């Protein structure tokens, strides 16, 4: 292979004709967004009732990793809970941040 190898491996540009999609109309926005995949709802990040021993043992399902969960209105309407589970080396950490919602 010669020095132009990198250029020839770039993806080709999209054909001009594919740029003619119509603008989304208002009716499109009234459709419901796709529903949340059920495997993401397996666990509640806010579930504090788990025994401390349990949490030492049960790995979170890997599909949940790096997804941001939002839960509001639990404590009060003005507090939002954001949760994320991520992996650090061979261990998993779930961080739940409680934020006030500015009025």
């Amino acid at each position, binding site marked *: 292979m010669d020095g132009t190898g990198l250029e020839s491996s770039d993806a080709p540009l999209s054909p001009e004709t594919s740029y003619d999609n119509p603008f989304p109309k208002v009716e499109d926005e009234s459709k419901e967004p796709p529903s949340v995949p059920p495997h993401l709802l397996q666990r509640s990040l806010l579930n504090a009732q788990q025994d401390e021993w349990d949490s030492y043992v049960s790995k979170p399902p890997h599909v949940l990793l790096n997804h941001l969960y939002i839960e509001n209105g639990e404590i009060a309407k003005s507090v939002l809970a954001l949760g994320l589970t991520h992996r*650090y080396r061979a*261990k998993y950490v779930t*961080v739940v941040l*409680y*934020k*006030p919602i500015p009025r």
Partner: protein
Amino acid sequence: MDVEDRDMLIERVPVTGLYQICESSVDGIQNMSVADLDASRYHIDKFLSNHTVYEILPESGRVVVLDFAMPIKRAFHVLHEQGIPLAPLWDSDRQQFVGMLTPSDFISIIMEIGSQRALISEEELETHTIAAWKAEKYRLLDSAQRRVPFQYVGPDDTLKDAVKKLLHYHVTTVPVLYFAEGEGERPHILHLATLSSILSCLCRYFQHSLDLLPLLKHPVGSLPLGTWQNPSNGRLVVLGASMPFSTALRVLDQARVSSIPIVDENGSLIDVYAKSDITALAKDSIYAHVQLDQLSVEQALQLVHNGGLSGAAPVLRCQMCLRTDTLQHIMERLAMPGVRRVVCVEAGSKRVEGIITLSDVFKFLLF
């Protein structure tokens, strides 16, 4: 201490048979070979120096973080609902962790509410943010030069570094933070490290090689650790159950102890009220509605038991032991999550003789 004696029921236990207890030096030890002490300390030091904080992270852990701009009242409720006594504080503007909200903060706030009841309205309580509270607190501490910068450890720090930090700054918990490459100064939180988790790691490590630690076979009454009744120096504080709760708060705040054994009229131990139990007052906003000097210690304890959401099961709250129990026995108790202290009682009567806390044990085990 600043609290007057007549406000407290201080137990004076006869000390026949109890050895002189010194804080940290080897001089006060009798009937114990110095070789045992040195050998055990050597192995423990080796363990702590060769293992990192990463090893005490649970395989799947959970950390609750509070935003610095959250109103204190909400924060109180969140901690109560989650069953945790404290949380690290995150400043979104600066994208940094800036401190911890601890039971000591709540105790100070509740005492302030008590004394300035007329001056703080309900709405002010709703909007008073953690940031505002801490700013006020730091102003006071700065003037007394008692302010301590925010402390944390990294996952690759040794356990020995973590223990030294925890002991030096008199804190129970230190956040474990790591800074990802390429993200500059923005930290990620991994865990809240405590002496308890380090101790349980240590106990697991040595569980099959206890011969390396001959010190652990000694009865705890013969070792210079913990706080004991001593006629010349009544440092051990206990409170009667019928005492007003405001006295308990004052003692926790001024005596700089983290818990008080609660005794009945005979001096027998019935429970322990710890600083971390303060979050039980968040239930139904009791702290806002009840005059604290009309609440008795017994009633405050009842709130904790009714709370049900607190982390430790009832049996873990009040760990008791005898003076003749071995150090190993005490350490295994303290290694249980949720247990931070063991109260030493007289067999039968359950009269309080002493208290041994996690920090006492670590101070004793380190060189």
